[in-house]
């Protein structure tokens, strides 16, 4: 039995508006806290703000200051080195472990747990642990020296030229398990019958991996690349805990640069400019990747 038609249209109206109403707070928040804030920071990067924000347009003066700053270039270069190596080794190690684990290993569950637990840790904890392990006098160096190699030194942590590489070691330790998990899921998702067909065709196991399985991991590969790039560009916690950006500024990264200039040194304009540069970098890396990912998905 139906209600009166005005009540009916009321229900229909509610059905129409309620979803939008429910979604709107989050959307408003996104509008303000993401897009609005980005605009604010962007504006700030074009002003002469120092300790306090100022809102008069000042052109690209802060970007100029940024690009003339030695430390910024060190940070940018470090990001390139760290990012590139971090992504490369995570992919290699992760893929290798995934392939190995795919071999119907007895203790697979336990091994997976071991490989993945670093992801549950804060980067600060990771940084702290590795800082200790790579301690020049008492960490890894001492272990090897105690074993008899008295000339062995491993002072990367305090060596300005090598400090950034310690971040790579710690970062790969933390994140490669995650890459492994994704690749393994991808491998497992491949239709069994393709592998059987290849075996019937006489292909050996390494060949099957090389020519069939790994190429079919392309979509996973893109996702992983996206996420690793994102982690690399944002790296702050790990570097702070492991090296503090030092010694000196030798292992500085843009995230730390931004934090210090904006919050410790009272240089809001430069800080904002560096933040915008980080945003541009992410967009410049992620957008082509996403484009390539959707393109390859269509083709496959």
């Amino acid at each position, binding site marked *: 039995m*139906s*209600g009166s*038609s005005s009540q009916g249209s009321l*229900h*229909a109206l509610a*059905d129409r508006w309620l979803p939008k109403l429910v979604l709107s707070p989050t959307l408003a928040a996104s509008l303000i806290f993401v897009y609005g804030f980005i605009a604010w920071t962007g504006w700030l990067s074009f002003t002469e703000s120092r300790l306090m924000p100022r809102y008069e347009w000042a052109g690209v003066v802060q970007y100029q200051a940024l690009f003339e700053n030695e430390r910024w270039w060190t940070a940018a270069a470090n990001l390139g080195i760290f990012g590139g190596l971090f992504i490369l080794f995570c992919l290699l190690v992760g893929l290798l472990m995934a392939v190995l684990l795919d071999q119907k290993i007895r203790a697979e569950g336990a091994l997976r747990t071991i490989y993945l637990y670093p992801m549950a840790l804060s980067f600060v904890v990771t940084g702290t642990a590795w800082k200790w392990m790579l301690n020049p006098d008492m960490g890894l160096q001492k272990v090897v020296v105690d074993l008899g190699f008295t000339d062995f030194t491993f002072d990367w942590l305090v060596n300005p030229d090598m400090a950034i590489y310690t971040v790579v070691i710690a970062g790969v330790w933390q994140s490669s398990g995650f890459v492994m998990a994704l690749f393994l899921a991808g491998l497992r998702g491949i239709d069994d019958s393709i592998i059987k067909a290849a075996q019937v065709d006489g292909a050996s196991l390494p060949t099957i991996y090389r020519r069939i399985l790994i190429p079919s991991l392309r979509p996973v590969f893109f996702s992983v690349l996206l996420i690793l790039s994102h982690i690399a560009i944002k790296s702050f916690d790990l570097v702070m805990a492991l090296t503090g950006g030092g010694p000196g500024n030798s292992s500085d990264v843009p995230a730390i640069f931004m934090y210090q200039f904006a919050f410790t040194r009272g240089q809001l304009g430069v800080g904002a400019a560096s933040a915008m540069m980080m945003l541009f970098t992410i967009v410049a890396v992620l957008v082509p990747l996403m484009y390539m990912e959707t393109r390859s998905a269509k083709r496959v």
Partner: protein
Amino acid sequence: MAALSINNVCKTYANGTDVLKGINIAIEDGEFLILVGPSGCGKSTLLNMIAGLDDISSGDIAIGNKRVNELSPKDRDIAMVFQSYALYPSMTVRENISFGLEIRKTPKADIDATVKRVAEMLQITHLLERKPGQMSGGQRQRVAMGRALARNPAIFLFDEPLSNLDAKLRVEMRTEIKLMHQRLKSTIVYVTHDQIEAMTLGDKIAVMKDGIVQQFGSPQDIYDNPANLFVAGFIGSPSMNFIPATVVQSGSDIGVKICDDNGCVVLPLPHDKAKLAAFVGKEVIFGIRPEQITDARTAYREGLPVMACHIDVIEPTGPDTLVFVSLNNTKVCCRTHPTEAKYPGESMDLVFDVSKAVLFDPQTEARIV
């Protein structure tokens, strides 16, 4: 139970696609309406619009003489059975059936009585405390129907309910639905892409294609008098033969010229000579159903034209044998008695019941006569 009338209903999507282009259908209280057509013809969209799940771009839908365009589904007094049954996974069968009644604040005693009645009718009383995940497809289908029955609505809507069942179960459930309709005299709108379901279940059929009702009528009417090429080919299995042929004048008769490897014959047509005369000398599409081309013994009328045809391939189906021949370079299916059928490579006399044949205009695809 109520009548349903769909008046000049159109539906356009936001991106500009016209899904429904002016639908006009009216059925009486207690009739079983079938919406049938190929995928993409708009039948499910139309059903959703009757249900209130989709907006109407223009036109009116009236249930029981009341315009329902603005009403939400719950206020239209309808019930729907879905292709995937759509049973609530976390609820038992009893809860599934009574959910709608609960929402309408029906007293508990009434709910229990209804559930009992419906369960008995569909023979699912022993399943009442189970959850959907613990039942077979056929059982779930019954529960879905039970849920609809419990609401005792003005109109039942079925959206391809049998498509997910295996062939045998499908036939069983079809009969049950028909029995249910006879018993309850309910108004039903039933969407399917299966023309056999359409023919066996419906009182009225609306054949749809590309958002338009190609033909609306009773099953037999649509079968015997298809309005155009599409309807003729869609309804009937095996489907109607379409033979391109020229209309010729042969003495006082007008007929179509049919040729195979061995020679040609003119099949005289008993249809309206005035209409035929306009097409003399032109190409038409000669439509004739397989059961209208058969062996001499099965043909139940005298004086029908006979032609000797060379057999390409035969398909015994049990009750008949389908004989395939080539006429006018077209593969033609003929239904013959199994004992009369000859073998591939041989020649066989086939009788053509031209009184049932239809002609189509090759350009407009409409029926000429």
